[in-house]
């Protein structure tokens, strides 16, 4: 761990190409303890790719990734599980780590799916499965959480509750979060730092700065920019470029 400035993972000018096509190029960002960094961008802009580079899933990359922790929880965007493998929720929870039963129960209770503990994974609905995925990632109290669209398929009220939960977890266990989301509304209120991707970093900064950015407007439209501003008025503080809280 990098004690000096609490950096958990740092990407320096990273890029990845597949079939001679660059999926992302020249991306630099860092996730610090207790901070939420959100990646936004249109489909195919390299958000998931960037997350996978940060996690070390992609190997032949350009640039450098420095990881200062090995205690990582990951919620992938897509997960295909083969049903030739009989797997209950509680077996799945113990997949990458040894956990005590109460840690497991606590995580499942937080995401609201404790009643599914003994159910077979194949019998869950999309939203229920998503909640289990999130519970699994937080159950081991990771230092770094990488959440790739963690609330997809979750009902609307559940979505808001889960985002609040994510925010709460980052404060409670003081972990850093790298979040990918399409939902500008909910995300922006909880984010410290936004990175807007479109094959490269098109802009980054506090939600407010990004909303004002012309490239962001070009990418998401004027409407999205206003959406962000609206949400910012709920804040009682502002964020500077590095995500620090500035008192008004």
């Amino acid at each position: 761990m990098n004690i000096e400035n609490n950096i958990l993972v740092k990407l320096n000018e990273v890029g990845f190409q597949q079939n001679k096509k660059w999926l992302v190029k020249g991306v630099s960002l860092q996730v610090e303890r207790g901070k939420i960094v959100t990646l936004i961008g249109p489909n195919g802009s390299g958000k998931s790719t960037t997350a996978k580079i940060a996690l070390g899933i992609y190997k032949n990359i350009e640039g450098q990734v420095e990881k200062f922790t090995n205690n990582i929880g990951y919620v992938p965007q897509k997960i295909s599980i083969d049903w030739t493998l009989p797997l209950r929720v509680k077996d799945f929870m113990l997949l990458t780590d040894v956990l005590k039963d109460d840690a497991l129960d606590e995580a499942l209770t937080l995401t609201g799916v404790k009643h599914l503990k003994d159910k077979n994974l194949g019998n869950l609905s999309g939203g229920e499965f998503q909640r289990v995925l999130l519970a699994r990632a937080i159950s081991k109290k990771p230092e770094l959480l990488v959440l790739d669209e963690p609330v997809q398929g979750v009902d609307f009220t559940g979505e808001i509750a889960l985002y609040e939960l994510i925010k709460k977890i980052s404060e409670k266990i003081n972990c850093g979060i790298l979040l990918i989301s399409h939902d500008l509304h909910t995300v922006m209120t909880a984010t410290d730092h936004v990175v807007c991707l479109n094959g490269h970093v098109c802009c980054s900064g506090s939600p407010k700065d990004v909303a004002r950015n012309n490239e962001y407007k070009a990418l998401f439209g004027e409407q999205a920019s206003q959406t962000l501003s609206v949400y910012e008025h709920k804040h009682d503080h502002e964020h500077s470029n590095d995500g620090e809280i500035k008192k008004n």
Partner: protein
Amino acid sequence: MFDDFFIRALVAGIGIAFVTGPLGCFVVWRRLSYFGDTLAHSALLGVTIAYTLEFNIAVSIFITSSIIALILVKLEKKTNLPGDALLGLLAHSSLAVGLVAIGFLTFIRFDIMGLLFGDILAVTTDDLLTIWIGGALILLVLKLIWKPLFASTVNYELAEAEGLNPDRAKAIFTILMAAIIAISIKMVGLLLITGMLIIPTAMARNLSDNPQKMVIFSIIGGLLSVFIGLFSSLEFNTPSGPSIVAAALVLFIFSLFKIKQTIQLKN
């Protein structure tokens, strides 16, 4: 105690069933049954090499199968052929080369049927040692790589992201596959060893709702198949490998009734 050939065969079979149970689960979960077949086919080449160089058969099979597995990995990277075509290519060419080589070795009398389908008369006390020591080693290594192997079987990216090194686990598992084929070939025969790996496991799948249960049922299924298979082999004078696999099939068919029951209960 091990003077009687039948006792030897039984002890050998029990040892093999303990190993094929857990390994078979991974073969089914990771969809490797054709891969297992390819390694088993290449074992014939290993046997010929062993006879030519007067070398230990199990070691020779283990080395040959491991090399074939390595060649497969290389070919997958270098060619545009799909995995199953490459497996077929390696399986049948190594079988063919093995048979041609046997044709040249006119000075040795081969029991081809025994190699292909297993021969309980051929199990010696030395083979028992190979099976039980080799089997114990396989299980020990499998236990050590269980977590990363299982996690990456469920989802590769989760395992990789959370620092479990699934590639290493996969490579070690491939070696374990070569090892189980090497120690069980005499008993079950190279054409049927995959059956021993997957049929008791398929039966276990029908009876289990979690991975641990599936492994245990798979071992029990394998043990029962060995008992029933060997006794009927003795009784009806049938080759041992096919008798064991046929017994496993019967158990599998019985397990289908259990599925039917649970489906009815759910409705």
